[in-house]
């Protein structure tokens, strides 16, 4: 399977995601943000980081960059697109995913391992997970507080477009287990065609037992499947 990782000058999880993809046997290419041609790929990943510094709203400039037009075109024709952390923020800026990511409720950057629950496992990204499976996964962000209007929230729920929700070790979804204030503990969402996934947690950080755990592996193997 062919994958492309979009590299903005301020991307900083690009190497990590590339390593993860290669480890999972993807044939991966790095695509520089000034490119206007996207190589043919089955999966496009927009990695974490600070795209163009993000001194303006996170992902705002990246959402208007040259390469992103190509990403939008590919996404609209059904290519799988995965946006992690800053990648999720960028996807909301392009409109490929609805809603937005506000500053964390405590107004501080958070890096820690938290738990998320698999809410929909009937997708190209999550089929290898069990429904309601609890994953331990790392987050690292300042703006991860997902927010959307009530019409879209209903749509997310009715069409089963919520991928993951923050929870505690036992799978309880509540205020205490919500690290950033995201509406209804939402940690990741799909578009209505379910070919685009945006998520704040970092699955690429969870593929190596020595460093963390292997809870992220099944996301990549689902895609490969």
């Amino acid at each position: 399977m062919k994958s492309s990782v979009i590299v903005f000058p301020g991307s900083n999880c690009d190497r990590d995601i590339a390593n993860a993809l290669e480890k999972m046997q993807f044939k991966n290419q790095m695509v520089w943000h000034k490119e206007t041609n996207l190589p043919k790929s089955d999966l496009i990943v927009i990695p974490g980081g600070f795209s163009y510094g993000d001194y303006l709203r996170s992902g705002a400039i990246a959402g208007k960059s040259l390469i992103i037009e190509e990403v939008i075109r590919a996404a609209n024709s059904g290519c799988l697109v995965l946006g992690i952390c800053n990648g999720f923020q960028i996807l909301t800026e392009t409109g490929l995913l609805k809603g937005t990511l506000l500053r964390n409720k405590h107004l501080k950057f958070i890096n820690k391992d938290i738990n998320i629950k698999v809410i929909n496992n009937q997708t190209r990204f999550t089929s290898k997970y069990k429904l309601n499976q609890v994953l331990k996964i790392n987050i690292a962000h300042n703006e991860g507080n997902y927010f959307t209007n009530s019409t879209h929230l209903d749509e997310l729920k009715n069409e089963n477009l919520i991928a993951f929700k923050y929870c505690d070790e036992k799978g309880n979804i509540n205020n205490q287990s919500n690290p950033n204030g995201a509406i209804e503990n939402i940690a990741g969402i799909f578009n209505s065609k379910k070919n685009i996934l945006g998520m704040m947690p970092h699955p690429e950080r969870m593929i190596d037992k020595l460093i963390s755990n292997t809870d992220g592996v099944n996301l990549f193997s689902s895609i490969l499947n």
Partner: protein
Amino acid sequence: MEITNTIIEKHGLKIEEYENIKKLLKRNPNLLELGIFSAMWNEHCSYKSSRLHLKKLPTKGKQVIQGPGENAGVVDIGDDDAIVFKIESHNHPSYIEPYQGAATGVGGILRDVFTMGARPIALLNSIHFGSPNHPKTKSLLNGVVSGIGGYGNCIGIPTVAGETKFNETYNENILVNAMAVGHAKKNKIFYSKAKGVNKSVVYVGSKTGRDGIHGASMASAEFDENSDDKKPTVQVGDPFTEKLLLEACLELMKDDSIIAIQDMGAAGLTSSSVEMASKGSLGIELELDKVPCREENMTPYEMMLSESQERMLIILEDGKEDHARKIFNKWDLDFVIIGKTTDTNKLTLKFKNKIEGEIPLEALASKAPIYNRKWSKKGISKKKLNLKKLKKIKIEESLIKILSSPNHSNKSWITHQYDQMVMCDTAQKSGSDAAIIRIHNKNKAIALSVDSSANYCKSHPITGGKQIVCENWRNLISVGSRPLAITNCLNFGNPENEEIMGEFAECLEGIKEACEFLKFPVVSGNVSFYNGTNKKNIYPTPVIGGIGLIHNLNKPLSHKFKKEKSIIILIGKTFGHLEQSCFLKENYSIIDGNPPEINLINEKNNGDMVLNLIERNLVLSAHDISNGGLLVALSEMSMESNLGIKIKKSKKLIDLNGYFFGEDQGRYVVEIDKKNLASVEKFLQSDSIYYEIIGETQEKFFEIEDEMKIDTNVLYKVNNQWYNNY
């Protein structure tokens, strides 16, 4: 413009120093030249008060590739890998403007590391604040922590270890020390020494603005009530541009285009050009019209003294200009040839076709002043503290008091604001004795720790100096690494004061003795004097940043207990030293007496033994005993593992408080599987290591027979309260 005494003083120069400048130039300097002298001759850049003492430190060893004198130190970690690392202070700017001060401290030390061709792989910090009750502390703490995080998180280098301490000595002068660690190929290290005449001198990175002018001079003086006026001398950080600069420099470093490279840190364009040329015994000529400027009508004086961040000066091989320009254009960075190397041994500054300044380089570098300042010795305090009269406090109560104190509270409120995982090689994070960073795509790793002990250094500087080196060594040992080398950040008060200079000289003596004995050389460092306000100096606070090597990282060793019913062994002898201890400070507010003695022979033997046991896979968990003594060490091993202990009181004739809270040095706690006990004892006995089997681990309860029994969850809660309520 006539140079008056007021102008000289404003530049932080003494009148005698000005007379010396005139002699070296054989004429009066103009204002630009005076500014350049002030930038090069201040304490921060010239090390004029410290140099004589720094020379005594051991800096060599077969693992050392580059010792002090370059942008950072370099050590060999086998194969073709090298580690480049250094610690630096950004105390003064961080007190004036905590966010930007701390952020640019991180940015500056990162440049020192990637200038040498290394990709930064870890950041550490040592931050010291005043009393938590001081009105400024909370906002300073908040600002510094978000500044450190803001820079490191954005550029994408994990912040993996550090220390945060509170002591009223820092009420008016906080300490912010940042350490960066990078990985390079041994045969691809870049240095700052220029070679060859008529080579292009290239300016890359951000544009030059009017920020940070006189920053280095500001950092070379005490604060007073007008310190807030110094805000404009603090630089503003731009981690995004630094990321671009990092990637562009590393890309250019893949081939042989670069002759010499130097970041523009303190004293900006001045110190970078002077250092490169003088190290190569050459001259350098700059055309200042070409310097990329952020603001209009900047004068040569402002350009030469600006400390705008994220800039580098590079001397290129002939014919490589276009190739290099292409790379910097790709990353949208300025790339301008602003001058050339010459054979004149002078710094020549041209502006609008006129020579605006010309100074022989030796006057700025080798002929810069060196002072043999007077210093006074500090003896051992003869007074013995009488602890018998103190009100009795239960062991359990004392333990809780210490664990809930600001200095011992769990620091995750801070460390969760730093990205510790990016780059995916962090095998052990903050909160351990040392962080462990795997070398990318390899099975080996480095261990990292920073340590300081200001109270010990204040009460007896020689012992304090030795202690911090040993403490660092112990932390590296405890995670199973072989200690390799250190970097030091020497934070002291006003060196013109004999007593302060004595603290400096004696702390250094202690550091030297310990480093020599442990074969643990100093490969880089930084001195920060004038930490004080209105003649009140801070406690002497040397900070040691050490690295160790783990050959085979099969399983990172942590200090958390691993299982029930394993044997707990205390290695090293306990005498019950309570003077200068946390026990006295937190329970009785007594900070008095002498620090615990350091016995370097025991220190080395015990450390070598612990490492030997770890390398033979005989140890389940290990922890060094430091502040707070045995019981605090044991509770740290318990708290996050949810496993308790069941131990006996010592049968030896020292008092209970001394046994459980004494801060005797050279000690470790190790957890051993029962089945390995016999072989462990054999090793310990064959090397005549002093040890005690003190008990076993058990489920849930932290228990001393006939004395206390408490749920480890309660200890955890107590330990996690303070920050959340601050």
